């Protein structure tokens, strides 16, 4: 993953490198041409100056300006690939002198190193950009399930928010307070506390419950659940929508982590457990998934044999 500081140092280094190399290409294209073993004619000087130098300087300025650095970093990756193509042609060309070809090979190796650094930086920046975008948009998760129990029973179970942690993976505990309020605690990494108070904002018996965090909460969030009878006495349709608006910084990162990369899947897995609890009395466990249905377990199954003590 790489720490935030590591990424910043890497990106900054690449930006400065870009500026340096670009300046050299602009100012002294002949020297650079000789260095990589290219023919130093007027056409190649122009190419070196404008296709190479101008591009490098633009990327360097873009990266150092700290605006949309990910896009500029991907420009560099594309440029590296272009350079590799040209250098490869130079190194492989049988009509070029031996020494020139040797220099082209050295140049190729150098560019490959640069490409690796660019790729790492570009991927890190993109991922961080996605996280930031998600944080700005908020996290929204929707899911639904049919529970083979009458509506009043399903409604009553959800209405008691203290039941929610029994099937919602991201909650540690919910405690009912006076006046329709409740205190929620989410599963957070060590050193971070994700706690908020919530109130019921709308409730229609056997139809709908909506709740939201109090105005001064650090973790702004709201949720709603709707209940509808399945025709023919076949139980209850349950539809859930959760929304979290994570704050900036460490808290926001912890909230984003609660839901991982697939918030919808997570709430749907929650609802499978909800159904299990209501229909069978508890969350169903197997040797491969000893905690029961868990989004993360799906990709990290234990072998299907009893766990040791």
């Amino acid at each position, binding site marked *: 993953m790489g720490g935030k500081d590591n990424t910043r140092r890497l990106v900054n280094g690449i930006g400065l490198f870009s500026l340096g190399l670009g300046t050299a290409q602009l100012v002294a294209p002949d020297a650079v041409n000789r260095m990589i073993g290219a023919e130093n004619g007027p056409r190649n000087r122009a190419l070196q100056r404008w296709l190479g130098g101008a591009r490098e300087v633009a990327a360097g300025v873009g990266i150092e300006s700290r605006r949309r650095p990910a896009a500029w970093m991907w420009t560099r990756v594309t440029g590296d690939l272009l350079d590799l193509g040209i250098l490869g042609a130079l190194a492989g060309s049988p009509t070029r002198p031996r020494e020139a070809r040797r220099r082209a090979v050295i140049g190729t190796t150098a560019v490959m190193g640069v490409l690796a650094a660019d790729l790492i930086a570009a991927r890190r920046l993109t991922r961080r950009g996605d996280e930031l975008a998600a944080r700005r948009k908020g996290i929204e998760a929707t899911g639904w399930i*049919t529970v*083979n129990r009458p509506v009043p029973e399903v409604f009553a179970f959800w209405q008691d928010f203290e039941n929610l942690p029994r099937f919602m993976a991201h909650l540690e505990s919910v405690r009912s307070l006076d006046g329709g309020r409740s205190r929620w605690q989410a599963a957070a990494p060590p050193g971070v506390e994700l706690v908020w108070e919530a109130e019921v904002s709308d409730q229609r018996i056997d139809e709908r419950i909506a709740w939201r965090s109090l105005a001064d909460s650090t973790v702004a969030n709201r949720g709603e659940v709707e209940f509808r009878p399945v025709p023919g006495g*076949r*139980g209850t349709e349950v539809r859930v929508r959760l929304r979290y608006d994570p704050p900036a910084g460490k808290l926001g990162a912890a909230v984003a982590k609660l839901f991982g990369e697939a918030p919808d*899947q997570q709430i*749907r*897995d929650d609802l*499978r457990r909800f*159904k*299990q609890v209501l*229909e*069978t*009395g*508890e969350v*169903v*466990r*197997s*040797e*491969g*998934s*000893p905690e*029961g*249905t868990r989004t993360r*377990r*799906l990709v990290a*199954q*234990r*072998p*299907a*044999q*009893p*766990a*040791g*003590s």
Partner: protein
Amino acid sequence: MQANTWMGKTKLEVQEVPDPKILNARDAIVRVTSTAICGSDLHLYNGFIPTMRKGDILGHEFMGEVVETGPAITNLRIGDRVVVAFPIACGACGACQRGLTSLCENSNPNARMAQMLMGHPPAGIFGYSHMLGGFAGGQAEYARVPFADVGAFKIEDGIPDEQVLFLSDIFPTGYMGADMCDLSPGDVVAVWGAGPVGQFAVASARLLGAERVIAIDRYPYRLRMATEKAGATDVINYEQEPVLETLDELTAGRGPDACIDAVGMESHIDVAPLHAYDRTKQVVRAETDRPHALREAIMACANGGVVSVIGVYGGLVDKFPMGSLMNRSLRLRAGQCHVHQYVPRLLARILAGEIDPSFVITHRMPLEDAPRGYRMFRDKQDDCEKVVLTP
């Protein structure tokens, strides 16, 4: 305890693993007294079922003695003899309440894996891959039985294991194959595959009133068993006779009223290029299942008849004769067996002496010989039809 574990494609190892513990209130722990190798275990053995992991305990046909019960179990006691249904079912969800226990909506903690492959997830199954729950199987000294109040059926003392062991899977599976045919008097039934499930499909079709039952296979010993033990009236060895032509002749051009596919995804065909075609597609994952028997069953079936599929398929087939199915008003029925709804009535038939399911057993060996048993069964060595293992 000792358990037979899957360690990779065609690699099994009987090894020491931890004893099972109660994980859910409705669990029971059973000391396994008899367990069997199922034809569908061979699909795991041969590496055709995805989401297996090294160390998975195999086996979904087993019975034994209850040695521990979870706090919510009230209908079983320590010491009870039980036979265990291979699908794990809660008894409370919509599917279970309709009797469709192999579609239990709660028993598969990894439902989403199966959902991605199949659209909707079926029930969890003992020892049958992680997409079907990741449950440890019964080819072991002990097994944990989830929802034991629903899936462990009490057996009175005095009846030998071998007469009731197959209530766990193959007898009900064969029976459901015949049951899905909605037989009426005079019906002719053809059964593809004279393995253990095919034998029980033949026997069940007779029990349910079929006039004629035709068994199709290529191993003379299996066809002999179908005639002598299961009650087939006719047999076709497809290496010696053309199946469609022979069925046509046997039914004077009508075709069998019902066709049961008891073969499934690893089917064999005698036409080498066709077999090579499907085998190749399977290897490159362009199709996962080889459906020769199914194709033939559809083409053979009488107009307006039933094609009943109890052989196991895992994913995709191609060259599926949809035109024949549609234009001739065929009904296609299929499913993993809803064992729970069949056990009581089949146990009653066994107790009444109408059938002794032990007729399919050809080999008995200790649990530690499981790898040898799998090999013999797969390669049909020594006229192997059914292997029972004793821990």
